């Protein structure tokens, strides 16, 4: 079977969940081969995890420049590898970096590209949810190989141990790929919560939360459920919570097993970021809030009373 290349994404030294999802998906399409694009030593740190999820080969494309410049060197190295191994398909995460590499790769290879894919069949037919999740599209790359970015939380990753033979890839980075230099990476404390787009539970707060201080209630419920915290644009614009946690049209798109909306009215721009969630729960003072139209369970009431009581009840049940 032909190889399906999965471009590995890491965060804090660990393999991101979307990579494990892509390895799981790749097994349906061919022989999964992981591609690590990074500084020397990047592949060794993750090879065991990639093997656990079925990577028969780990291509280690390692060079200081892959880490020191914004995506262009990674795209160049990946393009070279694709030309060498002629894979059946190339999968990247539908993340900022994954899309950026994919865009450059498409131009370099003169190959079609599909982004935000939630499913990919063996014949190359991809599924996408567009317009705030309101329309489901099936599409195909019609020129070149299926080059797709896969939206996190599109499927459940399952282990399937494989050998994971490490294959070093020669990387030559020319000057044209070294135009945008990364001067500094600043880590910001984010605690133990899962990453927003990868979390299986997301608890979000909106304007109704009322203040930055009150977001502690949102965080408490999220922590009790092992979830990530999100915020509506109204909450972010009001300064209640940082922008990187914004869910919706101009923020992140999430698709968790459980989405809890607290004090969020449910404007169409917010729904754009969360309406493909499996189960939706809402708490809102306004019984007419549009969020209730999509909620599997809704509580009409004051979230400042309902949420602490719910937190207490969860603790009681443990």
């Amino acid at each position, binding site marked *: 079977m032909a190889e399906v290349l999965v471009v590995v994404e890491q965060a804090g030294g660990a393999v991101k969940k979307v990579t494990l999802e892509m390895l799981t998906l790749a097994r349906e399409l061919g022989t999964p081969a992981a591609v690590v694009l990074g500084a020397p030593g990047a592949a060794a740190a993750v090879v065991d995890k990639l093997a656990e999820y079925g990577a028969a080969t780990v291509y280690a494309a390692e060079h200081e420049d892959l880490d020191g410049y914004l995506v262009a060197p990674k795209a160049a190295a990946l393009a070279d590898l694709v030309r060498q191994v002629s894979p059946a398909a190339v999968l990247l995460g539908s993340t900022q970096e994954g899309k950026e590499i994919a865009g450059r790769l498409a131009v370099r290879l003169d190959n079609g590209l599909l982004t935000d894919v939630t499913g990919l069949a063996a014949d190359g037919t991809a599924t996408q949810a567009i317009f705030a999740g309101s329309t489901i599209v099936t599409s195909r790359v019609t020129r070149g190989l299926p080059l797709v970015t896969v939206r996190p939380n599109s499927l459940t990753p399952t282990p399937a141990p494989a050998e994971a033979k490490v294959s070093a890839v020669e990387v030559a980075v020319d000057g044209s790929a070294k135009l*945008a230099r990364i001067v500094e990476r600043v880590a910001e404390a984010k605690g133990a919560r899962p990453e927003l787009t990868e979390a299986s539970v997301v608890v979000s707060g909106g304007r109704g939360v009322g203040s930055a201080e009150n977001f502690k209630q949102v965080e408490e419920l999220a922590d009790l459920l092992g979830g990530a915290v999100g915020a509506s644009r109204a909450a972010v614009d009001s300064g209640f919570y940082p922008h990187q946690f914004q869910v919706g*049209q101009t923020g992140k798109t999430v698709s968790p097993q459980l989405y809890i909306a607290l004090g969020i009215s449910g404007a169409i721009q917010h729904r754009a970021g969360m309406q493909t969630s499996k189960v939706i729960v809402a708490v809102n003072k306004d019984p007419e809030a549009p969020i209730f139209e999509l909620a599997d369970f809704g509580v009409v009431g004051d979230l400042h009373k309902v949420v602490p009581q719910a937190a207490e009840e969860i603790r009681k049940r443990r």
Partner: protein
Amino acid sequence: MNIVVLVKQVPDSGAERNLRSDDNTVDRESATNVINEMDEYAIEEALRIQEAHGGEVTVLTMGPERAGESIRKALSMGPDKAVHVVDDALHGSDALATSKVLAAALGTVNPDLILCGAESTDGRVQVMPHMLAERMGIAALTGARKLTVDTDGAGGATLTIERQTEEGYEVVTASTPAVVSVWDTINEPRYPSFKGIMAAKKKPVTTLSLADLGIPAAEVGLAGAYSAVVEHAKRPPRQGGTKVVDEGDGGVKLVEFLASEKFV
């Protein structure tokens, strides 16, 4: 500094949006079409750089005739002029073809700095800045929440951005010419003044066709696309489920529901 802002007209994300049943492209005919929201932040950033360092701001749009409305709206914020690439053969172009056309059009303006929104609200593909950078052999600084411009006195500049990542943020730098994409955290766009709206009506808008750009029609549009929509369908609307009014036990009821779904 010679700045170009890429502006896309998109169907209003606050209203219902559809694909056409005949050719699976975005239905722009029946939609309320507006400037892609993120692009307004790019225009604002361009104007601030112009205010600080001088130069000219040009709006560049590829789109059908009626995208001219969005160009006038963009100009009313303050840019000096616009270029509108309009050609019937462009209908249905994918990102690759769009980047080819925009790169050619940018070649006619020869900018030091290209600014754009980080994504459009219709496609949300996010690849355009890097596709353009790849085609034009220039730097791409993407997803900026902050942009600093240090001019070298000779028309060029060093650009430095902060971009949000999942772990924190990155500081990335490049020399002009470069393309920079911005998120809505970067500034607060100004509203067009009455004077600005009146002035926009008289600002020059150059229209360019595919022939003007030397791009064969077969390389763009639906026929030239490298991917195709096979079919599309409306997702059945979600049905609201149980709704209870809190009578002092709302939190308990919520947890009972979570337990019934095995989340607790």
